């Protein structure tokens, strides 16, 4: 439903987005990740028609954003960064204004607003001016505005920024609940969010896609993927370390001592699953195991590895 082809945006000599191509289908929730300034927001602004692309094209539900802007915009629900809204209006007035602009009239407009308000739990603050609302409520007004017309495409720039853990949970449930019927793009800094609600994660750095896959696929890139962590009494450190290291499935180890316990992390050889070997070893040796678990991988580590590694490489090739 969202087709992006060769999208490029230059601001003077600075290239914010460089030849980016991406397709998002119905039912997908795409987590858009990247360091600050990577081009996430710029891409979203071009998809929604706020910024004109320097090159490339975007189609939303078959409508070209450049030549058929209004049709594309009608199909999009957009939550801009910071959830801007008219502060002097009450939440109700604001949502009715959006409903009217979206072409709903009278009773239908009211019904649309009521439905959006219910989904975002705004009932209590409907008649307060938006500028007096807390950050969390403002964000939810922005969300309500974006989902009001039940758009086939939802684009949200940091939808959970500024929300407390309960509100974050509610917003994630809301997004998951809508996911089946829509194509959704969400930008976020919170990696656990990607795991929690996205079916696909795209990492961009310096305006280019550097990783694209399901959250599980990204996790598999982590050096912690299938790594095993075992916590033992500190006295057993030398013995345990040697025996773990000698296992065929283990490629390397990392050790940290915390007071009277020692944590040994064993990294697997490619494709191996050391958890079985290590648990068998622990049973055989009758170790006093405090903790033993295998890791699915760490997204933050993958994120760091991808975005800083590529940056270093570009620097090296430039020199």
């Amino acid at each position, binding site marked *: 439903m969202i087709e992006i082809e060769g999208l490029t945006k230059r601001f003077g000599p600075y290239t914010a987005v460089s030849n980016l191509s991406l397709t998002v289908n119905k039912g997908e929730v795409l987590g858009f990740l990247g360091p600050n300034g990577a081009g996430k927001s710029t891409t979203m602004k071009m998809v929604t028609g706020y910024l004109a692309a320097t090159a490339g094209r975007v189609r939303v539900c078959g409508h070209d954003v450049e030549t058929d802007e209004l049709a594309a915009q009608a199909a999009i629900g957009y939550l*801009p960064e910071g959830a801007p809204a008219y502060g002097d209006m009450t939440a109700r007035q604001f949502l009715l204004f959006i409903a009217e602009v979206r072409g709903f009239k009278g009773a239908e407009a009211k019904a649309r607003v009521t439905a959006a308000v219910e989904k975002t739990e705004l009932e209590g603050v409907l008649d307060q001016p938006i500028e007096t609302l807390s950050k969390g409520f403002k964000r939810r007004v922005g969300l309500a505005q974006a989902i009001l017309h039940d758009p086939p495409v939802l684009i949200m720039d940091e939808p959970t920024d500024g929300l407390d853990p309960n509100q974050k949970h509610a917003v994630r449930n809301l997004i998951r609940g809508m996911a089946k019927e829509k194509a959704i793009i969400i930008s976020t800094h919170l990696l656990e969010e990607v795991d929690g609600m996205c079916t696909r994660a795209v990492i961009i750095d310096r305006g280019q896609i550097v990783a694209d896959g399901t959250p599980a696929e990204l996790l598999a890139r982590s050096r912690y993927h299938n790594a095993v962590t075992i916590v033992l009494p500190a006295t057993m450190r030398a013995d345990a370390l040697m025996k773990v290291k000698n296992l065929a499935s283990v490629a390397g180890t990392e050790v940290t001592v915390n007071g009277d316990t020692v944590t040994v992390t064993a990294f697997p050889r490619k494709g191996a699953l050391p958890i079985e070997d290590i648990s068998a070893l622990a049973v055989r040796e009758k170790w006093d195991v405090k903790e033993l678990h295998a890791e699915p991988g760490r997204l933050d580590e993958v994120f760091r590895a991808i975005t800083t590694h590529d940056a270093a490489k570009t620097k090296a090739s430039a020199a």
Partner: protein
Amino acid sequence: MKHIWPIFRREFAAYFATPLAYVFIVIFLFAMGAFTFYVGHFFDNNIADLSVFFGFHPWLYLFLVPAISMRLWAEERRTGTMELLLTLPIPLWATVAGKFLAAWAFIAVALALTFPIWITVNYLGSPDNGVIVASYIGSLLMAGAYLAIGACISATTQNQVIAFVITVAVCFLFCVSGAPLVLDFFRAWAPLALINAISSFSFLTHFQAISQGVIDLRDLVFFFSLIALFLTANVVVVDLKKSGG
């Protein structure tokens, strides 16, 4: 039209949602009165007409209209609502027109509230009410022209103070372009045709023509085409900013 209406309504209501409308209207009426009675010596003239009153309009608008127009776009840019507004499915021209018309309607309300002075002259004597109606129309058209210039300038910046100062300066030039202050600068070197063209851009000349009571088509065309020109420029400026970022 169906696109302009929601924008118009929101913008118009926004004036009254904040103290802006009330402060503006009070100052507007107070200034109109003060100039007419104290500076213009309305009573001493002993003439039952409103030419003194209308004579001050171009100068009052010079500062009051930019105060309205400066926020039209600059404020949207600063608060980020510009991004919301421009990603809603509304054609850009409708947004520009809706904003302009709302501000114009607001100024019309302020202008209409000067009606007691009309009642006053009718009570004191028997003025030519046709001239007064024509003057009101001319005054509103002139306010619209100032406003269109201000709206266009407001779209170029996110700083309202800059928008205000530049608008005052540009409007001043339009206002006095028939006066020696501007014409002497050109007279030394420019051909007569150009000088005539420049002086024909004077708001004062056109406004004074209308406030004689003669609504000449040329004066109407002048104000309407100036408004259309600057609103088109407004659309172009907003559109250019889309590609410039």
